[in-house]
Structures are given as C-alpha cells and as structure tokens.
C-alpha cells in the first residue's frame, strides 16, 4: 500500500555542539511519530551534525539559534537547517575532498561536508535576505 503520511516538526537550537544529543533526540522522536524506517536515521543524524557544526564554526555574524525542520512528504523526507543573518553558504558548491590521497597528505578539514554530499543525491539551497536554508531530501522506499 502506498504511504501517504504527512508530518512536520521544527525546533530551534543554540549555536553549540553541546546541543547535538538534544538534536538527535528530536530527530529520533520525529522518526517514531512519522513512522520512518530506522535505516534512514543515521544518515540524517550525520548530515544534520555536519552542517550544524559547520554553521556554528564558520557562519560569520550568526548569533541567532539555528532552525531544524523535519518534514515527511509521503514517500520523501525533507530535512532543513536554516541559519539567520549570515552570508550565503551553498554546500553544493564546495570543493570535493580527494579521498585517494596518501595519509601523509590527508587532512580532516572539509570531510564532513564532502561525505554528506556523497550520501545525499538531492540537496536544495535557498538564500533570501540573509536567511540561509539547506535541505536534504531522502527517498523513503
């Protein structure tokens, strides 16, 4: 039977990596409420952690809480992170990391965003009046 469930939750979190356990709990609660298969949960944790910590570290001028929105649209999950009063940052345009380099030339920087791009085929971005929103889409099959 086709899945037609629709569900949306959003919450804002202070700009601190210490919030990550609370963020993961929020995601897990949404997965239970929206009846989303557990196989999709850890990739969503990964993408949200990587972008959230990147925004905390590098969004110049960002002082407001970061908003996380989870939306089930039938057979698709949309996960958005919105940062306010910050410069544009479209992770889709960041350079890929060369993961074939010898260990002596490897550095951890940029790896999280690179891996997130590898995990998600469909990533959206919108920048309006200082409001920067990245959305990860996941097919729920």
């Amino acid at each position, binding site marked *: 039977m086709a899945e037609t469930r629709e569900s949306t939750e959003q919450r804002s979190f202070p700009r601190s*990596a*210490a919030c*990550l*356990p609370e963020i*993961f709990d929020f995601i897990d609660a949404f997965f239970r409420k929206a009846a989303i298969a557990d196989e999709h949960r*850890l*990739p969503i*944790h*990964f993408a949200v*952690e*990587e972008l959230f*910590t990147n925004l905390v570290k590098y969004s110049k001028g960002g002082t407001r809480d970061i908003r996380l929105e989870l939306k089930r649209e039938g057979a698709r999950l949309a996960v958005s992170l919105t940062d306010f009063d910050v410069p544009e940052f479209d992770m889709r345009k960041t350079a890929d990391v060369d*993961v*074939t*380099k*010898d*260990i*002596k030339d*490897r550095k*951890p920087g940029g*790896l*999280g965003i690179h*891996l997130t791009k*590898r*995990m998600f085929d469909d990533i959206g971005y919108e920048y309006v009046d200082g409001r920067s929103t990245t959305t990860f889409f996941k097919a729920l099959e």
Partner: protein
Amino acid sequence: MLDIRVDDKGVILLSGRFDASQAAKAETFMAAVTESRILDLGELQYISSLGLGVLLATQKRLMGRGHTLKLVNLKGHVREVFHYAGFDAIFSIDPLPGA
C-alpha cells in the same frame, strides 16, 4: 555517548556514538596511545567527521613512529562512512579474527 574500554588483550573497544560532542573525550584517550593497537568498532553505532579526524590524527602520529592502528569489526553506518572517506585505503580494516 561514546564509551571507550581496553580489554585484557589490549584491544581498544569503542561503543556508542562518536559525534562532535564526544571528540574531546576520544582525543584525550587516543593521545595516550603510543604504539600499534587494534581498535574494535563492532559496537560503534555512529561516527561523524570529528570522529574520523581523531582517528586520522592518531594514525598519522603513530605511523610517524613506525606504528599503526588496525580497525576490526566495522558495521553498517560506520563501515559506509569509512568507505566514503577513503579510510579503507589508509587503515588496515579487518573483521574480528574467527568472526
């Protein structure tokens, strides 16, 4: 929460979640590792790039001294992340002996 234990054979066992909120704890532990060790990740459910960075830094430091970390028993999400990161080329990754 990340849990770090050492068994009676000196194998380091990581379990739980290795995310950015746990990186400092892992860095402190790994800084004290000064020779070749086996790292059993069989009970590690999740790792992010901060966790990968801690392991990469440890491996680079140990290899500079002629030692290495050997990773065993990677599963699911953790194995997938290691593969995407190209870490299967810079770490020795094996299943547990006898597994």
